[in-house]
């Protein structure tokens, strides 16, 4: 449940932030979301960030690409030496995923700083 919430929040907050700020806004969005949600282990927030970022960037790229029938993407994928639009979308999604995943991970460890430690609890 928390995982799904993380996904939705990163996508939503990331989308809003990126309307006004450059690409690193996605990292901040993921950071804030994971910090607020709180996790015990780093793996889930990382995976959630990866998925959310990939969905946001891949989806947005696909949406931007639609009205011109992929003409530009075709040219850019040739320019960058990729095999086609699919690869270009994939790279874009992966990059978005990595950004959000790293933001999430940093958010997770940041929150850990303030978690009462086992020793202190005793």
């Amino acid at each position, binding site marked *: 449940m928390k995982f799904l919430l993380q996904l939705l929040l990163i996508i939503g907050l990331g989308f809003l932030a*990126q*309307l006004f700020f*450059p*690409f*690193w806004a996605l*990292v901040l969005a993921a950071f804030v979301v994971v910090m607020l949600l709180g996790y015990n282990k780093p793996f889930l927030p990382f995976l959630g960030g990866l998925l959310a970022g990939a969905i946001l*960037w891949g989806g*947005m*790229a696909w*949406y*931007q*690409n639609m*009205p*011109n029938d992929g*003409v*530009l*993407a075709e*040219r*850019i994928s*040739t*320019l960058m030496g990729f095999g086609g639009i699919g690869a270009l979308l994939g*790279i*874009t999604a992966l*990059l*978005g995923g*990595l*950004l959000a995943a*790293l*933001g999430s*991970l*940093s958010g*997770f*460890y*940041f929150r*850990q*700083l303030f*978690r009462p*430690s086992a020793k202190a609890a005793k």
Partner: protein
Amino acid sequence: MRFLKFIIAAGITFGFILLLNTYSAFGLAQLPAFGKWLDPFGGFWNNARSQEQFGDKSFHLDGLSAPAKVVYDERLVPHIFAETEADALFVQGYVEARHRLWQMDLMARASAGRLSEVFGERTLEVDKLQRRKGLAHGAEKAVTGWVESAGDRLDPFMKYIDGVNAYIDQLEEKDLPMEFKLLGYKPEKWTALHTALITKRMAQTLCSRESDLETTNTLRELGPEVYALLFPEYNPKQTPIVPDEELDFLSDTSLSPAVGQLHSPAFRRPEPQGPEFLGSNNWAVAGSKTANGYPILCNDPHLALTLPAIWFELQIHTPEYNAYGVSIPSFPGIMIGFNENIAWGETNGSQDVLDWYELDWVDDTHTKYRFDGEIREVEYRVEEIKVKGRKTVIDSVRYTHFGPIVYDASEETGQEELAMHWIALDKPDRFEPATFMDLNKASNYQEYLAALENYISPTQNFVFACKDGDIAIWVNGRLPIKEPQEGTSIQIANSSDDLWNTFIPQNELPHVYNPASGFVGSANQHSTSPKYPYYYNGHFDDFRGRILHRALGQMDSITVDDMRALQNSNYSIRAEEGLPLLLQNLDTTELNTVQSGLLKLLKDWDYRYSGDSRAAILFEEWWDAFYRRSWDEFYTLDSEMSMRYPEDWRTIDLLATDPLNVFWDDKRTEEREGPGDIITLAFLDMYENLKPQLEKSNYTWAQHKPIDIMHLSRIDALSRKGIAVPGNPSALNASNNPSGPSWRMVVELGPEVKGYGIYPGGQSANPASPYYDQMIEDWAAGAYYELHLLKSPEELETPVLIQNFHPGKGHQH
């Protein structure tokens, strides 16, 4: 421990962001900043959302005096409706920046020698040479000269600049043209200097060509007699722009021939000159020769073909005038086009207006030289070339009163330093931009003449037709009065008496007005025969002018279709005169069956470089092989110094009249050959070279010489390569990779003027746009579009985009 984990995670994240935010990461100059570039919100993906598809937009812009409206037609041609000329030009600036901003930025950069700022080290040498030639210095002088001489024409001109900036100012980073994102920079504020830089760039393309170094070497190697035999300046078969019988406007002038000087050192041009873009045609036929009784005007300027194209099509409508045509973005008004009363167009004049001088240095420091009996000091201009990813390169360029010292001395060849005087860089005393602004409004011959008087450089053949029946052509621009042969080779000039310092008076420039023949036309050929009393030299074409005058002389009851066919004509006088000579000298006794088959094809050829012709391939390759074998001496010498090569027309002439001369001998062989021997050998060369291609039965001329229309960045993925087109430089359809007809226009004047036109490219510079390159196929097929000279915006039934402009503080909704 937790702290350490956080620091590591945050550090990796931060480092990753930094990496993705950096251009030329790992020192690789060609890499974009991947984060910015791939970001679907602000990167290139955002450019895919092609903005011209969005219907109706409103803008409030500071600088307009009244509301203006732009409707875009089915090819994204903007039709600008404004209340005043100044408003119209403001909107033109806005609209051209909207569709062509990166192209404008790049052209200005290329001219100023500022490419390395954005491309890095790979363009450094190009920039250095450009700084040496001093185009930026010339552009600065141009702006000063324009401001001093513009009077009240300055305001509408500056409004265009304001319009460009109005667009730049509201541009958000995410909406930058894709090329800015790829290279990682932002457009700078547009100024009159940027526009002036682009005029200098055009001048460089059109009127910086000369062969002074080559002529100097060739004259020295061959001696004056052989030189005169191989390089006569004028082809007596030529039909000049001004026929002899029309040379009746001149005063008497007498000139003393200059004494030719022989130089001892061998000169080498450090960089090859760009390809010779000769190919432009324009003409006008009088009503007496047309089917509907009104003049028809045609123009097809040939230039290097690029994406985005050099031209941008538009209409400008104000209560005062209504004009349609093409402009070069960065320049207010329409350069080639028509209005309700007149039509006009240009071809290049090709006169040599760039000369090289050796200096009489006082000492080895090469900072002082003797001139007019006194000692003069050079002035320094420090050129700072910023290079992306590297430290700034400084070059101090020495200026003499001739101009900058462009070429350095070389101990290897004994070459001296050379100073350049190029008319295009002199400070103008006229407001040149007014030429086109005023032509747009002109309604008769007198107003056309008045507009031309503002013009200085590059020299152009301005053709004109008016619905009242007048036709005319003027070779217009500033042309120095030279002594014969002056400026054909490098000069040693120690006093102003040795130099040209006066100009042909405006009213004695070559021109034709309503000639008895009923037509005027130019195709980069000589302006006049040597009967014209002012000497001039240059790079003139020798075949197209002749076919143009021959064709127009024979035609009657001319229609628009006839004119379109003539612009697309592939007929060549070079082939008509050259092929029979090759055939009659060919030894056919030892040809095999395949070779005899090729010979048959050649004998049946109609001298047309049609797309489906095979004979055209054979003739071109045969001629080429023959030329190389004939002039082998030149190729040998060229390894030591820059040489001038005999022209094709002269080669044909000599083949017909001087078959016994020793220069036909191929010096690389032991035998003494005559023309027959080398023509036969060349035939076999041709056969060997073409054997693999000719085995494909569908291999034709259009596939043999395709055209590549390259994006200005020279990135293949944004270019259109391998476009099959017919034509040859010796035919009116002078397509020859990478140049070709950059705009074809036919205008029929009359109560309702009718225009037809096309250019290879599209109105939008956005590679995502359907209007990026959509005209190329129709252009290659020789088709035309009907041009809509609207009377009101409502006349356009389904505009693809409407822009409403209102005076006010800049915002958009």
